[in-house]
């Protein structure tokens, strides 16, 4: 495969220093809906001003450039070790360009590796697909939002939540309540219903790549996403937890087969700085998505 390092650095730069159009649009709608002069409106105003500045100066939208999480879809027959090495080289170089902060810390010694690489860092998920092209999707997920992500095991007696969509609804509302403003509200929720504990979070984060305006093809899930968006905002936590009308910007969920004994709801809370970007390579030509 051709040398993609330069393109991968550009992918990281785009993810870190700008927000997707749908997220910016949602933030603008939120700003207009908050009471003029309120702390919530002021916070959203600063957020929008910051995004404009970051894009203009090519500096990170948020100083916590997160764990870089790569979802890679590759054509049949393509090895992944070389690509992985190129991505690692791009991550280290993007840090030298100040698009990323060094975020890889050894849990035993407390030492920061200094180059943003470490054991299992960044995160990679490879999947072979039918298409004759390579796609690299990147999510920069900050630590504050990761800390308020949560996994529920249903039934849940405290919430009187059973093993059904009504139970899922209660778990999601509780997770958003528990998060308060700590995950940098207004957040975006990626949710996996079912699966096992580890895959549940992988699927939940994959949901965060869906555009905010899309409609879930599964009718029951589409209805629940809509209801939860409305109900999460009724919690009144507001931007930064200052109180206000906008607590979440989007709710995206998928259902995955589960073990008969298990019913997990995995909720990946993403901050308002939902930094996702993608690139596709077909016949050597690179297109940013």
């Amino acid at each position, binding site marked *: 495969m051709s040398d993609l390092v330069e393109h991968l650095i550009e992918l990281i730069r785009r993810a870190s220093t700008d927000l997707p159009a749908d997220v910016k649009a949602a933030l603008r709608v939120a700003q207009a809906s908050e009471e003029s002069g309120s*702390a919530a409106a*002021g*916070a959203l105003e*600063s*957020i929008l*001003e*910051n995004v404009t*500045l*970051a894009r203009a*100066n090519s*500096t*990170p*939208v*948020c*100083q*916590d*450039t997160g764990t870089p999480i790569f979802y890679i879809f590759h054509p049949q027959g393509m090895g992944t070790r070389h690509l992985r090495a190129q991505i690692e080289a791009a991550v280290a170089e993007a840090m030298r360009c*100040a698009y*990323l*902060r*060094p*975020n890889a*810390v050894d849990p035993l010694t*407390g*030492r*920061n590796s*200094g180059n943003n690489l470490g054991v299992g860092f960044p995160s990679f998920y490879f999947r072979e697909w039918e298409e004759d092209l390579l796609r690299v999707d990147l999510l920069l997920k*900050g*630590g*504050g939002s990761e*800390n308020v992500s949560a996994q529920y095991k249903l039934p849940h007696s405290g*919430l*009187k*939540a059973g093993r059904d969509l009504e139970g899922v609804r*209660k778990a999601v*509302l*509780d997770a958003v*309540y528990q998060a*308060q*403003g*700590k995950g*940098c509200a207004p957040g975006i929720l990626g949710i996996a219903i079912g699966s096992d504990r580890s895959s549940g979070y992988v699927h939940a984060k994959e949901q965060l790549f869906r555009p905010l305006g899309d409609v879930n093809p599964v009718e029951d899930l589409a209805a629940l996403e809509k209801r939860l968006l409305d*109900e999460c905002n*009724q*919690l*009144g*936590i*507001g931007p*930064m*937890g*200052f*109180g206000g009308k906008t607590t979440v910007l989007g709710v995206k969920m998928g259902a995955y087969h589960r073990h008969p004994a298990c019913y997990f709801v995995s909720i990946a809370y993403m*901050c*308002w*700085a939902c930094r996702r970007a993608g690139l596709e390579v077909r016949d050597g030509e690179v297109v940013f998505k």
Partner: protein
Amino acid sequence: MSIVDLSVPISEDDIRALHVGDTVRLSGVMVTGRDAAHKYMIETFIHASSVPESERPLYEELRRLLKGGAIYHCGPVVRQDEEGRWHFVAAGPTTSIREEVYEPEVIAHFGLRGVIGKGGMGAGTLRACQEHGAVYFHAIGGAASLIADAVKEVVTVYKKDEFGVPEAFWVIRVEGFPIVVTMDSHGQSIHDEVEAASAAALRRLVGLA
């Protein structure tokens, strides 16, 4: 609610005049410190029977900078220019609640007037703010490029190699640094109010009311 310009060092009278909801533009020299820094201050300075000789210069420097000053919960993205000078590229706040176990003692020991971060802090910090005349300032989480614009100079850095870039003590000079008082020195906390109201909404929505 009002907009107030303050400079470090901040007097107790100025702090006592602030109330939750007030917007502040802070200027002067302050210090960043987060998880590793707080653990270090507690273990090496505050709980130690005596400060080790090797750490004494930093202790004296922090005592000077933090008296009447502010600590900022932040792990910045930095850039070093050809002359070796550091610059803040992105510098929004990190979640403060992780420092709750340490902060009340840090406020008391160093005579802090302001703790800056995001997400708010707990009952211990709120009490320390009341007792010692300090407030919790909320910066806008994620507004990193905007906030970095208010950082006019990186004066120096301590413990960069030992703690890593995000966790080091960065001494910075700021101008018009934008923050909101969300916990004041009169026992008021916006975070407590929002949490209580959202708990009631949750009980209604989940059917536990």
